[in-house]
């Protein structure tokens, strides 16, 4: 238990720093921004209570907001993502008993389902983020391109992180 908490605390710090220092500065072709820190929210154990998922989601959003001067944008998008996370998981693994391990991963969900789950998380988060960001500043075509491009990039980088952090046999 303590080991799990420590592992997630470390993951939180590393992902937040990476997002602030590295990923926030990337903008491929002027459109694609990797919003990779949501990998933290996606990886929280399914057995964790909804209140904790919401709290950790909100906090990670707020942290990224502070670093990137986007007050409330990530916090709101993360809270909404954290709130819908249970539904997203049940899309691919209908029964909780089917999980061999409480954390969503290749091992616990199967490679196909896990990839679909990460893609869905990317789509939901990028859509929420750019919609909220566009409140004050509306340009429909640019918005759609940004959502699609950022979803693709976020998904790719999350897969890369996943294959770097898990051992060989469990990789996608």
């Amino acid at each position, binding site marked *: 238990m303590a080991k799990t908490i420590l592992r997630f605390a470390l993951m939180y710090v590393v992902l937040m720093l990476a997002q602030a220092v590295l990923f926030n500065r990337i903008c491929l072709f002027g459109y694609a*921004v990797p919003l990779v820190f949501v990998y933290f929210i996606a990886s929280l154990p399914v057995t964790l209570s909804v209140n904790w998922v919401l709290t950790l989601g909100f906090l990670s959003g707020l942290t990224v907001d502070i670093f990137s*001067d986007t007050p409330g944008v990530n916090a709101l998008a993360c809270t*909404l993502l954290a709130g819908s996370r249970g539904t997203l998981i049940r899309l691919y693994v209908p029964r909780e008993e089917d999980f061999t391990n409480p954390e969503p991963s290749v091992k616990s969900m199967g490679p196909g389902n896990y990839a679909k789950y990460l893609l869905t998380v990317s789509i939901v988060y990028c859509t929420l983020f750019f919609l909220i960001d566009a409140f004050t500043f509306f340009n429909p075509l640019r918005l759609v391109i940004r959502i699609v491009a950022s979803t693709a990039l976020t998904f790719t980088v999350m897969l890369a992180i996943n294959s770097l952090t898990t051992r060989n046999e469990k990789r996608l």
Partner: protein
Amino acid sequence: MRNLFNFLLRYSSWVVFAFYVVVSFVLLFTRNPYQRHVYLTSAGDVASTVYEGASTVTSYFHLRDINDDLQQRLATLEGELLAAQAQIDEMALQIHADTMTTVEALQPYRFIIARVINNSITRDHNYITINRGRADGLRPEMGVVNQNGVVGVVDVAGERYARVISLLNPDFRLSCRLRADDGVFGSLVWDGKSPYEAVLEELPRHTVWEVGDTVVTSGYSAMFPAGIPVGTVTGTSRDNDDNFFKLRVKLLTEFDHLSTVRVIANNMADSIKAVEGADQ
């Protein structure tokens, strides 16, 4: 009472969810940057320490480009210095020494050199974090320039760090004029399309312009002295209304590799403000 308690317990996740959503909305719609707390911005202690660390590595990346810019700027300034010196010599012959004002009185501006430790160009509202703060004499609403032109304006000043509203932020409007035509002035604002371009709005219809004209600050605010270069005109913007028209401006500052900037401390700003606020 017990029913209420049971109700809250049963729907506790909805209560928590609603609470976080409300907090996010409060953050989202407190748009006035001057009222925001410094710890919720990149000028806060933790965020600025992280950026300072990262910037000690990344600040080396663009040294070659910056060096070229500096050489260019140096050459221009040397030319201007020689011209000014010639003018001073000429004037010194015409005017007696006792009628000349001191150099200090002619220069109400002072520069504070700062390093950019965080910068964004990809968002809709872009900000820059610099490693100078209140302790170095920075105050909100001070102008920021680099060797090429205008960069932005300080909006949150922490003790050792400050956040600057970038020119690439639609919240920031800059009063500008065309260098070729002293009479007309408009306001420069970013339209969010490209980090290399902005729009000069509210120009009177009779403005005479050419592609390549230099756009400079008007000096109508205490933030920037008049005549600081901002960009060059690339063409007219399509959505013109009847009374005013707009020009597209290519910005001279290259926001994708900012490193060292100068904050303009205007020694007269307080007196100008006092005069402007006198009748309110």
